[in-house]
């Protein structure tokens, strides 16, 4: 892949805000932390913008940041129904990896990974990006063979991927139960060493602060109530804070994509489903990597605070309720305790659901629509967090130039008519 020449948007950082560094921290410590400035303004909407992004999650804020920094579109706004990163950005399990099967997926997720690798520096914000490795485990002979096919395909795309034997896994994750007589015995796995985690809130805050620095208006508590059209052209967004005119509108609202599409009179092949996660009480460090199991729909990592972060499979029915059914986390916890007996007495502190926008082929939609000036970035389903920078980068390019670049082109909506699907059910990690 020829990704070395990505425009990361760094040149446009104007540094109007105080630079965050160890020295500024020390200075402020001496000042009882009284001198920190607001990270972003509480903007009120102007009458008109060059572009409006609906959705103040990671993807939406990244889109705004790259629109301003790479494409010099600074007269733009991000509007958010609730608070920044309060949707799926703050509800995921923060796993980052780029080990997807197909070329189209490899190119967008690896694009994101390259951006992740310098993002804290780009944004001057500590996003706590930790490349602690992501290990996906196999529980059957068949899964092991499928995994080796996957590993070779991933390697051919220049992405790091290694097969681990049960002996390797025993060394890499000493607390894992390697008994071959359990319900789901661990028979092997594959590891992406460059994979890992990042602090999800910090990603939203970092992008918001950097975008605000360039003049982007970030408007919270502003719900979209309608999309104003003139024939086949978008001309504005109706909100609870009044009409905001714009001839370019990008929708990045995950679970509510179908609701917005309905306002515009178009349709999307999306089903909104609850995806649940839990965190435990904090304990001493016992797990320094991320473990995923596709067969039992369990993924686990340990946060810097010491909480075990566990994710479950997606619920089986459509919902907008941000909560799911109890059997789903119950099954996941049963699998977690079998794989990690050390967790059996652990108490769970919090449990929540996010509404994910699942697509028939488990790949996202980054596309123009039948309405000129209206763009959608959705369908990331159960795994959007890992793509945040890459998604924002290519979506900004699509909005600025009104044509998809090479990375975004395969993700156009018309793939559901042509049949050129990007079937990533196997790599998506969670069954749709």
């Amino acid at each position, binding site marked *: 892949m020829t990704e070395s020449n990505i425009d990361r948007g760094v040149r446009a950082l104007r540094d109007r805000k105080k630079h965050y560094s160890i020295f500024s921290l020390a200075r402020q410590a001496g000042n009882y932390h009284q001198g920190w400035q607001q990270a972003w303004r509480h903007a009120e909407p102007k009458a008109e913008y060059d572009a409006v992004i609906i959705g103040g999650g990671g993807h939406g804020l990244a889109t705004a940041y790259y629109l301003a920094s790479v494409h010099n579109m600074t007269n733009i706004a991000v509007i958010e129904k609730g608070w920044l990163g309060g949707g799926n950005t703050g509800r995921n399990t923060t796993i980052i990896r780029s080990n997807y099967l197909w070329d189209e997926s490899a190119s967008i997720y690896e694009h994101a990974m390259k951006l992740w690798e310098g993002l804290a520096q780009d944004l001057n914000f500590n996003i706590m990006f930790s490349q602690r490795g992501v290990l996906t485990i196999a529980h059957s002979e068949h899964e092991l063979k499928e995994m080796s096919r996957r590993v070779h395909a991933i390697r051919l795309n220049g992405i790091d991927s290694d097969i681990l034997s049960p002996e390797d896994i025993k060394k890499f994750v000493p607390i894992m139960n390697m008994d071959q007589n359990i319900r789901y015995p661990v028979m092997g796995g594959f590891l992406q060493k460059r994979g890992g985690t990042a602090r999800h809130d910090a990603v939203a805050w970092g992008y918001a602060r950097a975008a605000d620095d360039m003049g982007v208006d970030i408007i919270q508590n502003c719900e979209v109530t309608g999309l104003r059209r003139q024939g086949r052209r978008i001309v504005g967004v109706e909100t609870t804070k009044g009409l905001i005119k714009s001839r370019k509108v990008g929708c990045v609202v995950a679970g*509510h994509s179908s609701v917005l599409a309905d306002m515009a009179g178009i*349709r*999307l*092949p999306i089903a909104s489903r609850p995806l649940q996660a839990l965190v435990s009480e904090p304990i001493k460090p016992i797990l320094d990597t991320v473990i995923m199991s596709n067969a039992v729909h369990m993924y686990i990592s340990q946060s810097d605070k010491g909480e075990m972060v566990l994710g479950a499979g997606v619920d*089986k029915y*459509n*919902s*907008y309720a941000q909560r799911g059914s109890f059997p789903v986390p119950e099954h996941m916890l049963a699998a977690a305790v079998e794989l990690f007996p050390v967790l059996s007495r652990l108490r769970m502190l919090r449990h929540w659901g996010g509404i994910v926008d699942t697509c028939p082929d488990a790949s996202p939609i980054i596309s123009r629509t039948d309405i000129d000036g209206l763009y959608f970035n959705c369908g990331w389903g159960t795994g959007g967090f890992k793509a945040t920078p890459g998604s924002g980068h290519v979506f900004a390019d699509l909005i600025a130039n009104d044509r998809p670049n090479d990375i975004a082109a395969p993700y156009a909506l018309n793939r*559901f*008519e042509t049949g050129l699907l990007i079937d990533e059910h196997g790599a998506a990690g969670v069954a749709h």
Partner: protein
Amino acid sequence: MLEINCPYCGLRDEEEFACGGEAHIARPLVDNPISDKDFADYLFYRDNPKGVFLERWRHSAGCRRWFNVVRDTVSHHILEVYPIDTKPSTKAGRAAYQASWRRQSPAEAAARKVPQKTRKTSISKR
């Protein structure tokens, strides 16, 4: 956790059931001409309402029979359970059935026996 009233077995826990997604999707007949765009409506495009939704469920760990459910996707409240080959009878269910874009879609017209006049088949650029 949902409790679903299987029309054949009575009230059971959600775990015994599988959800089959949107109900009342008719397959276009092979003899009726249809564009790729319209066929995508049948194959991939699904209703995804925030509110009343008509969906298919199967009592997969019980009698293994399919049936339809009217459910609210915000409150998860089940408003009606009715047999697979019938239409909803509650007011909310009937309204949701009539309001669906699918009722007017060329794909549904092409599912009827008599060949319908289909609109000019062109693949949109969307």
